[in-house]
């Protein structure tokens, strides 16, 4: 949970483009020094939200506070923010160096301070050899790094990153991830970070806000979101490969059970949200990585023999597709274990690790 006083605080923020309602009465408090990751499907309004915080879009309603100051009507430059744009927005006629230094020069910083900051940022981002080039002579990833650099050199309270690493290779990305984390720890400034990369989200975030259609669905620590998603959407959206869902019936009473097409899962170890479990149509969700197979599986509270249908290799391990209770079920297996299509194996899981959702509303039970 957020610690300290809020650094960025958003109240009832709404925004329309014409009659397209993009953000709807959105509330969000971000603590000082917090690292908040915005996650959500494409087009859900993440960039729009960042733009609103930055003051680049005229909001329709609501208020925005930064460091306790109402900045709703402030100019972007007076908000103490730095931003990396999804579209980079580099100044095309300036060299990389010019792009990095321009804001600083304008702010009237001394020359050697500017040089120092640029040196540091370009070292972190590995763009030293490119400093004299213009953006048009850079590759996509190089442009993206310059865009990050432009934000990094600024000494601000709040950083807004819009998918800053999307065009970088995995290696560089993990390096920069570590750098950003380190930077965050050192500077202790607030960061709001949009990403589609779950690893990024989970490793970087203090809290994650999952958005859908302009509304925040869940705002919580990464593990909490991962383990206890508040609704089916969040459960489905996070995790890759994504959670397995099985539709069925919840049978309440003393010994609650989940029933579907020949399967019955005992739920006594499951932590219901409400004190007692209701009865009715529901969806049972279990993450692929929580499904064991082989000997380990047999020992678990629920286990079943199934047939392997598809195998997807994934480098270090493989994804196995099978069926359970009439729905698809996938789980991970180590690449070396000799599983083949058509094999029959025992799979099992601990229902305590599962999530149950009400079928009509999709909310967690």
């Amino acid at each position, binding site marked *: 949970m957020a610690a300290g006083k809020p650094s960025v605080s958003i109240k009832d923020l709404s925004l329309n483009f014409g009659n397209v309602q993009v953000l709807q009465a959105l509330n969000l408090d971000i603590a000082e020094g917090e690292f908040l990751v915005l996650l959500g499907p494409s087009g859900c309004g993440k960039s729009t939200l960042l733009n609103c915080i*930055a003051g680049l879009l005229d909001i329709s309603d609501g208020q925005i506070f930064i460091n306790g100051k109402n900045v709703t009507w402030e100019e972007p*430059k007076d908000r103490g923010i730095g931003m990396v744009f999804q579209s980079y927005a580099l100044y095309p006629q300036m060299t990389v160096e010019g792009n990095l230094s321009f804001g600083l020069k*304008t702010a009237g910083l001394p020359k050697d301070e500017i040089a120092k900051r640029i040196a540091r940022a370009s070292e972190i981002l590995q763009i030293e050899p490119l400093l004299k080039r213009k953006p*048009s002579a850079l590759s996509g990833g190089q442009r993206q790094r310059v865009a990050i650099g432009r934000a990094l050199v600024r000494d601000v309270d709040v950083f807004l990153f819009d998918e800053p690493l999307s065009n970088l290779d995995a290696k560089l990305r993990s390096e920069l991830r570590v750098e950003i984390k380190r930077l965050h720890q050192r500077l202790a400034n607030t960061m709001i970070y949009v990403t589609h990369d779950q690893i990024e989200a989970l490793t970087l975030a203090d809290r994650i806000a999952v958005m859908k259609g302009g509304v925040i669905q869940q705002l919580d620590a990464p593990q909490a979101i991962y383990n206890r998603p508040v609704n089916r959407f969040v459960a489905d959206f996070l995790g890759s490969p994504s959670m397995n869902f099985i539709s069925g019936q919840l049978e309440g009473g003393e010994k609650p059970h989940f029933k579907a097409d020949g399967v019955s899962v005992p739920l006594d170890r499951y932590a219901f949200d409400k004190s007692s479990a209701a009865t009715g149509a529901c969806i049972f969700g279990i993450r692929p990585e929580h499904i064991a197979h082989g000997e380990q599986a047999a020992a678990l509270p629920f286990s079943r023999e199934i047939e392997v249908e598809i195998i997807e290799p994934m480098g270090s391990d493989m994804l196995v597709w099978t069926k359970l209770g009439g729905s698809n079920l996938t789980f991970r297996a180590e690449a070396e274990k000799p599983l083949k299509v058509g094999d029959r194996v025992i799979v099992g899981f601990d229902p305590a690790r599962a999530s149950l959702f009400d079928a009509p509303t999709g909310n967690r039970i």
Partner: protein
Amino acid sequence: MILTAVVVFAGGTAWTVLYSFTNSKLLPRFSFVGLDQYYRLWAAPRWGVAVENLAIYGVLSLIFSLAIGFLLAALLDQKIRFEDTFRTIFLYPFALSFIVTGLVWQWLLNPDFGVQAVVRGLGWESFTFNPLYDASIVIYGILIAALWQGTGLVMCLMLAGLRGIDEDIWKAARVDGIPMWKTYLFIVIPMMRPVFITTIVIIASGIIKVYDLVVAQTSGGPGIASEVPAKYVYDYMFFAQNLGQGFAASTMMLLSVIIVVVPWAYLEFGRARRG
């Protein structure tokens, strides 16, 4: 077609240069007199004045039309209301005939019944604003009218350029805390470099050719104080019926244009097109 154009321009230029070495009068004639026409040209006090005027007028008009045109375009680009109206107001002088433009400004700047008279009529007796009848500043009087007529077009060109710029660049600059004027100066203007080049060529070619306005406003006067080279060319070709002299003068004009344009063009187009 474009080839035709090039052939016409190249051919026409060559023809002009060739005949500038003759003493053609009313009709072009091959009777070579060597550099005589050039000696006479540079001996004529009027040509000297004309060149000097063109230099002053050219530099100032280039600077001011770019500055004013850009400024107006920038103002119009602020998502203002009545943009169309303002734009048309700034542009309409461009549609009017030079002759009448000259006449109206001649009136407006006339000390006896123009602006000076009005201001004096308001009680400010010592007010003097008499550019057209003071040989030392007459060229500025012409400049005022020229800017009035020409800046609208520059504004349009600039506006077209501004409209091509991606909004994200503006956003980035706003976040960087770069003041508006600096964004224009250091980001937008460099991005509009091609537009500026176009504009400069258009303005410059207009400057070199400036003629009608001077005729209409001052007839080159007082005396020869506001003469310009194009008028010299025109006067000698058609009034004085001395084609050779006119050609010599226009060859000099072209020569100076070539001296400026060719190296620049090679710098500009010779290197890789993008980047």
